[in-house]
């Protein structure tokens, strides 16, 4: 450890000397996986704020029945843009961006396998996102007004048909997502090739950090899932602009076909969004429990199993479509089955904490919050796999509550944990712990206050995507609770943003290894030099830094 050079001079080096234009130009033309990763995360966070503002307006509208804060048109655009933004412009770029930043460092590589493809992917994502938002200015709806897409984030046919979606807002949705989707495919491919062929000496597949395993499966899932979505979007573009009828039932097309295409992408997508979160947590929990991950081989097996099973559960989004008893039973069984490897992961995390000496620094708070919230999202997922129960609550607020527990309580909490964990590595300075803990508890309380009541309003009969709800159906209390939680969440997010910005200048200098961790990225400087490692590392176990710190008792002999 001490043999590796620390370079305190690099901390805040970007601030010194060069004119702003030169520095911006350097970011614009970079092919460095670390800079691209940071740009992914930053643009994802900006989109996160935008999507959060959209959600807050929706919750204000739904704070009481028959509210008229926003018109139905605006509300329908808000939930479409919120869903699309959070999935395609927040979840994907932040997770793929962090993979981009971390994977080469963790496997001891100098960069990704295809650095220029990497830059290409980032800029496609960014401009795809901007294209989607340009619809607020450029798209024309009915009566020639400027509008954003309003067909929902899964854009069911035939609502997307020219007949029902006039103007070109839906075309903006198609093109924006398609362009950023190409970027995701490039990044997915890059991750797979990098992990398979760029590992440092001694790092066999079974010695990779679990995050690298998860990113490998995510890359493969991106390749499997984004293609069908892109194909379906091209078909929809043909329907709308070239007179094709793939999804137009009036002309012999099939509205159900779109649903199959979309969810064949859409469900693997859920695992694309959650597997990296599993990876973050699998790195954070051992470090702060001071223990090796419990059951590494089973964790790897569970990850691979999730990858395979996730490709055959898509139609559990379609139990109310009328697929018939046989298909309903098949997809119900497959969905139950995916609970097993997911459960194994949760048990192994708890097993890792068991017998440890747990330090509840901010990354660990978020990781523990992730486990607790994800368990709830997983259990409601099991309930939804029960087809007859799903017939009642499908497309209701119960589902909205469920997937926010998975994607917010799950993925977003893990992302914040990862940000707090690797921020010192990327920036060279520590975040403020007090502020970080406040932001965690505000988010945790606000999150549960907003999303837990949604399960109840859904079971009481409230469908999703309604701009107003009926009075006297027992929904008032649950909705006002949901809306009030937004205030706490907003405060938590503002604190996080403030902490991220302020600590870049004022945080304590981190040093190479502030958390006393065990994976390779902590062996180089914070921030790492452009070439990552001065000497190409060689590893002899899953925890190379453990071996360095405990030469008398290296890990390799137990694996």
């Amino acid at each position, binding site marked *: 450890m001490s043999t590796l050079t620390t370079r305190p001079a690099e901390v805040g080096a970007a601030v010194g000397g060069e004119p702003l234009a030169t520095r911006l130009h350097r970011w614009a033309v970079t092919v460095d996986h670390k800079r691209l990763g940071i740009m992914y995360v930053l643009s994802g966070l900006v989109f996160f704020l935008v999507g959060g503002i959209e959600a807050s307006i929706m919750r204000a509208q739904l704070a009481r029945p028959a509210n008229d804060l926003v018109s*139905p048109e605006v509300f329908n655009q808000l939930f479409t843009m919120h869903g699309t933004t959070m999935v395609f412009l927040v979840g994907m770029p932040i997770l793929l961006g962090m993979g981009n930043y971390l994977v080469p460092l963790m496997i001891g590589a100098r960069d990704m396998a295809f650095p220029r493809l990497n830059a290409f992917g980032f800029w496609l994502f960014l401009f795809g996102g901007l294209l989607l938002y340009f619809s607020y200015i450029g798209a024309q709806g009915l009566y020639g007004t400027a509008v954003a897409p309003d067909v*929902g984030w899964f854009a069911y046919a035939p609502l997307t048909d020219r007949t*029902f979606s006039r103007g070109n807002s839906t075309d903006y949705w198609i093109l924006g997502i398609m362009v950023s989707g190409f970027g995701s495919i490039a990044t997915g491919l890059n991750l797979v090739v990098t992990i398979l062929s760029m590992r440092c000496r001694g790092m066999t597949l079974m010695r990779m950090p679990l995050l690298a395993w998860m990113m490998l499966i995510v890359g493969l899932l991106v390749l499997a899932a984004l293609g069908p979505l892109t194909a379906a979007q091209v078909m929809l573009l043909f329907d709308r602009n070239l007179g094709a009828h793939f999804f137009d039932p009036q002309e012999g097309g*099939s509205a159900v076909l779109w649903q199959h295409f979309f969810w064949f992408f859409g469900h693997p997508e859920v695992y694309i969004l959650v597997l990296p979160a599993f990876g973050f947590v699998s790195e954070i929990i051992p470090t702060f429990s001071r223990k090796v991950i419990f*059951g590494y081989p089973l964790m790897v097996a569970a990850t691979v199993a999730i990858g395979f099973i996730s490709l055959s559960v898509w139609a559990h989004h379609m139990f109310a479509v*009328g697929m018939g008893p046989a298909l309903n*039973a098949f997809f119900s069984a497959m969905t139950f089955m995916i609970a097993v490897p997911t459960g194994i992961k949760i048990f192994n995390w708890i097993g890792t904490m068991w017998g440890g*000496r747990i330090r509840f620094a901010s990354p660990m708070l978020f990781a523990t919050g992730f486990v607790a919230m994800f368990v709830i999202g997983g*259990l409601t997922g099991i309930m939804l796999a029960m087809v007859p129960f799903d017939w009642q609550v499908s497309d209701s607020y119960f589902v909205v509550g469920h997937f926010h527990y998975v994607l917010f309580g799950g993925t977003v909490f893990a992302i914040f944990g990862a940000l707090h964990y690797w921020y010192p590595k990327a920036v060279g300075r520590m975040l403020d712990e007090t502020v970080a803990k406040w932001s965690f508890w505000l988010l945790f309380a606000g999150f549960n206050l907003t999303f837990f009541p949604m399960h109840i309003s859904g079971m009481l009969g409230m469908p999703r995507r309604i701009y*107003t709800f009926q009075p006297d159906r027992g929904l008032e209390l649950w909705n006002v609770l949901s809306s009030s939680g937004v205030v706490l969440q907003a405060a938590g997010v503002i604190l996080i943003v403030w902490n991220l910005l302020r600590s870049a200048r004022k945080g304590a200098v981190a040093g190479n290894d502030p958390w006393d961790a065990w994976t390779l990225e902590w062996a180089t400087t914070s921030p790492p030099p452009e070439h990552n490692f001065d000497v190409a590392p060689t590893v002899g176990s899953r925890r190379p830094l453990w071996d360095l710190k405990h030469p008398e008792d290296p890990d390799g002999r137990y694996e």
Partner: protein
Amino acid sequence: MRRGSAVRGDAGSKREVRFSLRSAGSRCGSLALAWAIPGFAAAAPPIAPDSLSEICDPSTGLPMPAIPTMFDPASPPAADIEALTWLLFGICAAIFVVVQGALVHAIIKYRARRRDEAAGDEPRQVYGSNPVELAWTVIPVVIVFVLTLASVRLIRDIERTSPPEGALKVVVIGHQWWWEYRYPDLGIVTANELVVPAERPVWLELHSADVNHSWWVPQLAGKMDCIPGHPNTLWFEADRPGVYLGQCAEYCGNQHANMLLRVEARAVDGPLGFDAWVANQQSPPVDDDSTTPGRDVFLALACQSCHDIAGVSEGAFGPNLTHLMSRATLGAGVAPLDRDSLRQWVDDPQTLKPGCNMPSLKLDTNQLDAVVDYLASLR
């Protein structure tokens, strides 16, 4: 409340619990997990404390629950699903307690104390344990296997491929943003309010005229989508007379939130019974000389190009108005139907349902009064 209390009587709340138990016993008793049911059913749904209390529908006198939820089922599919729901709650609550309990235990027991920090060494490193890992693989496999069996069995019980014996057949057609109901065996076409006999199975054929919708009345059955070019079916059998509410559950555009559902399950006999309703619906529309000016306005303007009134006009785009005033609500449930709301609607529907497909025809006061007089006569 005149008919409502007589029909429902005081057996209501008792029957709820008994039904859950019986149904749970038959479906899941063999699964050795039925222990979860009695406890939860007896505890009564804490989240819907008022669902068993009833109010009276003002227009029909039929009973309706204060909160129309899946926890107050009035039909076999909904009752089966309710029993299943309590089973699921039981299993998931048990898993929740075990997992979160283990997590909380680990958080409390194994958090670093100051003396540990001072000691400086690391805790014992445990790389895994084959028996433990095997256990938390096999036990979940067994649980999900049982759940899969329960799921498959209930799917088979509820999802019928042919109509139940003696079922009343109704064709449901979803429109942006209203419902059309056709009774092919009775020659009736109506809109927005489904009237059925209680204690007789009803077989719905679900279609859509435009985009996807979903027919969801939680007290009667789970939802089923109305998809153009992909007809679906759904059945229910109201076990007691009453008004059952719901709404469209698949996003269908601007006014998705105001595409409400109302089902009236009526006793067969009596002045407000199903047979009387059928006889009225099958009769020709009221033809009263005093409303002729209104009918002329209706025919002279665009009204007749969208709305069907038997023997008068043949529009197919909007709701059938032949017996308009036999309905309780207006605009797929946005307002109770009376002369005032009707007048407001005809004057400018956008004030009651902004974004709906019916434009204001900008009638002058005389025309408006005449048309409303005419429509208000269509009992």
